[in-house]
């Protein structure tokens, strides 16, 4: 047990109440952990945190710490009040990439816990907002030792700084009937193509991949990733009419009208007199609402693929941006399909690395230069799925119209020929 325990009257308040308390957890490390390195560190961490609570200020500053061979992956933290709390004066976090969908065996969690007990503070978070396992709190020296140890059994650092960041995927095909994508393969194919860009920050700013298996977008990919891959389907949704009838028998017709058909954003569903559902699939926008309400009766179709949106990000610097549709639909089945996906990501990152300003996210660059310039830069043709509506201001030069119109007809003809085989 650590000597000279800091008084923590404010933090003690956070031990009250029924929700599990992180303060009680840190105190357990302080009071019960036999290793002085850990119990003293926990004591001074609590001391500094109490000081923050009392003064309403943070007292960590950044710095430069990485492991041999890499340039990022660590969040360095040095205490500004180290004189008062010396045992936690270096308190760096290691960001470690989890598997897509955040799966673990208990054995693996125990192994990671053992390694962290050897080299770190004993505090871990599954996961940070970028999607990393956060091993919170260790010294510069032990950062290297801990990394060496877990790297030997299959774990690698994630991104920190202006680089490709750790990806995030929903539970997806592993457990969810809504998923139209192979999140595991997409996630690893993309992230591990850019390992160098994850470990050695050299881009204008951060670049995030997120993968959601369906348009429910459980990982917030459109809102908070530069490159969002969302599973979808383009044939008809599957309807199990017996299950529809079963649902109606249980919930009533009115419930279905009130909660399913009338909530359809494109009014493409009809509840028939014989308690079956009809869907105008051409007008279905795959919003997922009806499938969410009736998961036993309604299922995605069989012709699955993904929609890709580029340019989502949070506030800094020009305000929040949603991603924009760049690929309305693409299949992801063959190696060639995956090669096309990787090529799109490469072209996007290359173009942005070339043209983005310092600290400018990909979406901000697109905002600055216009979507058409971006599309031309990455070699993607314009498509009406990319816009909510066409231009509404007449101030535009259209002297290349005939050529552009010709391109469109040409493309349409090629698509037709391709479809005809």
């Amino acid at each position, binding site marked *: 047990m650590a000597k000279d325990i800091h008084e923590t009257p404010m933090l003690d308040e956070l031990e009250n109440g029924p929700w599990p*308390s992180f303060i009680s957890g840190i105190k357990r490390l302080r009071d019960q952990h036999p290793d002085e390195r850990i119990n003293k560190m926990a004591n001074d961490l609590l001391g500094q945190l109490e000081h923050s609570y009392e003064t309403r200020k943070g007292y960590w500053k950044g710095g430069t710490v990485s492991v041999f061979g890499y340039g990022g992956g660590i969040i360095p933290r040095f205490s500004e009040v180290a004189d008062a709390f010396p045992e936690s004066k270096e308190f760096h976090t290691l960001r470690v990439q989890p598997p897509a969908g955040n799966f673990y065996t208990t054995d693996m969690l125990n192994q990671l816990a053992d390694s962290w007990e050897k080299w770190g503070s004993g505090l871990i978070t599954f996961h940070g907002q970028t999607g990393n396992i956060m091993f919170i709190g260790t010294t510069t020296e032990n950062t290297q030792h801990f990394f060496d140890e877990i790297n030997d059994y299959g774990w690698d650092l994630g991104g920190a700084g202006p680089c490709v960041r750790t990806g995030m995927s929903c539970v997806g095909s592993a457990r969810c009937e809504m998923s139209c994508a192979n999140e*595991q393969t997409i996630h690893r194919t993309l992230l591990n193509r850019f390992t160098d860009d994850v470990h050695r920050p050299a881009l204008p700013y951060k670049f995030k991949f997120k993968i959601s298996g369906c348009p429910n977008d459980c990982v917030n990919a459109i809102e908070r990733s530069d490159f969002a891959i969302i599973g979808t389907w383009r044939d008809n949704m599957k309807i199990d009419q017996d299950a529809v009838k079963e649902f109606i028998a249980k919930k009533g017709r009115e419930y279905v009208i009130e909660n399913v058909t009338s909530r359809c954003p494109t009014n493409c569903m009809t509840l028939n007199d014989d308690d079956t559902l009809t869907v105008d699939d051409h007008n279905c926008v795959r919003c997922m609402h009806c499938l969410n309400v009736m998961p036993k009766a309604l299922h995605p179709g069989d012709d699955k693929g993904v929609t890709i949106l580029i340019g989502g990000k949070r506030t800094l610097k020009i305000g929040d941006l949603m991603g924009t549709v760049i690929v309305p639909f693409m299949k992801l089945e063959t190696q060639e399909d995956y090669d096309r996906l990787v090529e799109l990501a490469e072209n996007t990152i290359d173009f942005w690395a070339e043209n983005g300003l310092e600290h400018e996210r990909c979406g901000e660059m697109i905002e600055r230069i216009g979507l058409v310039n971006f599309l031309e830069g990455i070699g993607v043709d314009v498509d009406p799925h990319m816009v909510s509506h066409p231009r509404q201001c007449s101030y535009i030069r259209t002297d290349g119209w005939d050529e552009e119109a010709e391109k469109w007809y040409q493309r349409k003809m090629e698509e037709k020929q391709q479809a005809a085989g």
Partner: protein
Amino acid sequence: MSMENMRQPIESGCPDGFQYMHPVMRRNYGLWKYHEHPRPGVLRHVAYSGDEIWTVKAGTQRILDLYTLRKLTEIGDKYGEGYVRFTLRSNIEYMVADKNKVEPLIKALEEAGFVVGGTANSVTTLSHTQGWLHCDIPGTDASGVVKAMMDELIDEFRNCRMPNRVHITTSCCQINCGGQGDIAINVQHTKPPKINHDQVANVCERPAVVARCPVAAIRPAMVNGKPSLEVDEKKCICCGACYPPCPPMQINDAEHTKLAIWVGGNHSNARGKPTFQKLVAAGIPNNPPRWPEATAIVKRILKAYQENAKDWERINDWIERIGWPRFFELTNLPFTKYHVDNWRGARNSLNASTHIRF
């Protein structure tokens, strides 16, 4: 240690997830048929093969100490089948193929102090950032805010009494790493940064700091004979974006750093397109250790939503149906000049119609 003795990293990147997946999930990957929700915190997924997997979800303190993590794995070994995952909001999920393990698993989790729930139309765990515990630019704490709020919202985590799911987020600076949420509690600074002119030249790359400002309010200047930076305080929007690249531009203030509450962020494409959250309340005191003022407003919003929204309406769907004037009326929050947007694209947020509800 000399360079040649250093261990070269193995750049393995993202690990293969299949090795950590429950065998039933591996076997039925991409072949799931439907799911049911037998009770809060429990999901039953059925595959086309007829196999099924049961999930028990529990809330934790997110900042896990070794003892807590080992308790969670011990429960997984003793009552589960050794396979877990974590959700985006740091809830732990135990997957078991044997239905009979569900009840003992729930009991073991609850006895150990974890909270089973967080599925479907509940208020799930707040997603949050690092705060005073670890961030270098925080205006407030994160784990503490969440602990204090979840203490009061725990029954809504354990039950499914909301019209639809509620995702709450917190962010401890205006970069808002916590992301979008049905309800977001974010730091809102109210005064320009206080500049320590003695340090700027040594610590900050001045052109980078000038470039970082969203409203071009920062310019290089000589102050007391030293190269420094100055802020046009009339232009400054107090966002704090200059603080990370230039710590001498202190934005955090014990008194003037406040909290604001935003609602209606929704990531899903279900029904409408994804939406960003909108400001509803500001000027809320940053009041550790339990932030009672912020919690009170969140509870008020949740109550109005619970009482007035229709089934399946997320908070944004509900407000879109009833209109913003009614939202402010139902929640008894003031509508001020600060609610009227003046950022780029603001015109799109103005009502250019006679669509008025009476």
